[in-house]
């Protein structure tokens, strides 16, 4: 019984990490109607960047995070304005193909610079501490921290969208880019900011990933897939749905892993496919997929 609760809890908390990955993806699709195929690779890039800075400057990983996240946000803004904005239009192919190219470039660049070995960040005692919940059940402090971060980020974004001038601009640009211009909104800049935020969140996700486990340069695509699955399971257009989706995925993977080591990831995929067949709009859909 404890084992079952343990598995469930682990899965739920893993969902927090997946939700962080998924949020950036959901944001860029929500505002720009664009999926960044290199989304996972940017997370891995931030992780390796953090690893390099920690190794080079010997700083505490959390301090490095405070440096890396804004740096990645800036990179995201630049990438959107200089490259990705040129691909936006009626055709869905250019942004997908360009970001696919980015994915290949990043993976191989990381491989050239860092070799194919895996790296990780040392979380110190945080990585091993656990909180006892009674009844013989305990949860790791790090997974709890990650889940707390995910909830905080989602709450902040919800507030941003619902109550701020920028959030309204995001919604306007997403609803109707032409009329948004008539309101005085500079779409190119707004998309840049959206990508900067998405990139900051994904940098945080990559950072946590490296704290939790080893990362390898070619892991990006897998991360993209989990993010994507979390978004679809949760339902398009719903930020909190993304958290739910992440948790469903996390639990599916956790349960599968418990049954057979080779079935962890596969169970996640199968759960995704099942939701796709049974409830194609996800668990908490808010918008129709256009």
């Amino acid at each position, binding site marked *: 019984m404890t084992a079952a609760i343990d598995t469930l809890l682990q899965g739920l908390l893993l969902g927090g990490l997946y939700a962080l990955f998924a949020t950036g993806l959901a944001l860029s699709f929500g505002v720009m109607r664009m999926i960044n195929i290199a989304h996972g690779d940017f997370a891995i890039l931030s992780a390796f960047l953090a690893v390099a800075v920690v190794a080079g400057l010997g700083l505490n990983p959390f301090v490095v995070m405070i440096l890396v996240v804004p740096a990645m946000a800036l990179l995201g803004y630049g990438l959107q304005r200089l*490259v990705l904005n040129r*691909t936006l239009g009626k055709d869905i192919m250019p942004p997908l193909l360009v970001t696919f190219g980015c994915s*290949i470039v990043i993976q191989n660049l990381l491989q*050239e610079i860092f070799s194919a070995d895996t790296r990780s960040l040392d979380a110190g005692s945080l990585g091993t501490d656990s909180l006892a919940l009674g009844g013989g059940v305990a949860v790791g402090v790090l997974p709890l921290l990650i889940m707390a971060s995910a909830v905080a980020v989602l709450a902040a974004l919800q507030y941003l969208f619902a109550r701020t001038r920028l959030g309204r601009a995001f919604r306007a640009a997403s609803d109707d880019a032409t009329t948004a211009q008539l309101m005085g909104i500079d779409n190119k800049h707004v998309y840049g900011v959206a990508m900067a935020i998405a990139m900051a969140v994904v940098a945080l996700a990559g950072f946590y990933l490296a704290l939790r486990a080893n990362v390898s340069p070619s892991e990006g*695509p897998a991360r993209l*897939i989990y993010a994507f699955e979390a978004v679809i399971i949760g339902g398009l257009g719903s930020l909190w749905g993304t958290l739910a989706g992440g948790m469903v995925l996390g639990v599916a993977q956790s349960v599968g892993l418990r049954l057979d080591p080779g*079935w962890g*990831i596969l169970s996640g995929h199968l759960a995704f496919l099942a939701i*796709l067949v049974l409830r194609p709009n996800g668990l908490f859909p808010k918008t129709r997929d256009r």
Partner: protein
Amino acid sequence: MSVNEIQIERSTRASNIAAILGVLLLVAFVSMPWWGERSGQRLLTEFLYTVALAQMWNLLAGYGGLLSVGQQAFVGLGAYVLVALGLHAGINPFLVIPLAGLVAGLIAIPTAAVLFRLRGAYFAVGTWVVAEVFRLLISNSSSWGGGSGLSVTQTVRDIPVWWRDSLTLWCAVALGASATLLVYWLLRSRHGLALTAVRDSEPAASSLGVSVQRIKWFVYIVSAVGCGMVGALIFITKLRVSPEAAFSLDWTTVMLFVVVIGGIGTVEGPIVGTLVYFVLRELLSNYGSWYLIALGLIAILFMLWIPRGIWGLMSARFDLRCFPVQRRLRLDEEAKR
């Protein structure tokens, strides 16, 4: 001016020349086992199956409007049909090739049923998930060699080397040429007009009675069949099948690169793109991962600045069409009066 005086024609001078050249090239390829040397044959085999793969991706994306980053699912499937029928059941590997296509086509049916619930970019990532599912399912089962794979040399052991190489080449010629001709034929037919219409505007096409759904199904299944057959052929040449290699994203990377560089949505594009890809690969062969980085960067640059690819650019500039798919109106001399 009455209707009788307007002629509808298809061929151009370029296309007539190309047709003759094409036949000559085919004769040269097929006869290569008698005059060519081994390494040249292997290269040509690889060239031709790459063209076949690219045409399959082109069919999906350029005409069906379905962007897939998961065709490696069917390439890998073809490889494992080779394992099942060639290795385990002892069937002649070259006969397995069409069977691999059949199996891939059958599996494509339920796959499409699930995937078509997604659209656009989501469909693309969905295809990737499917490929991953296939890979993991096979990785987890030891009867297929598990994660480390197995050798299929057994399948060709009884075939003399000359026949092995020649049959491989002939199959590659057959696949490359038929993939190209199939795409060409499809586009010449009224299905082609329908496909172009779907690509240009789904709602408009469907309001004209074009069955968008049926076209997407057809294109998806044909592409799966093609990729399956090529998959079986590829692993006859490689002789070792592992899930990593069979379901590798690299297949999609190559298809994508070739079609983007060559020209999406044209019949000639994948051929031009494959040529460029092979040349680049030769030039950059000593640089390890840098060669993939260069491919990625070139694809990005092309997508940003030359979205119609090399062939798209050239055919617009010089009005060249080697595989004419449009119909042109030609007014008779008389009618011009």
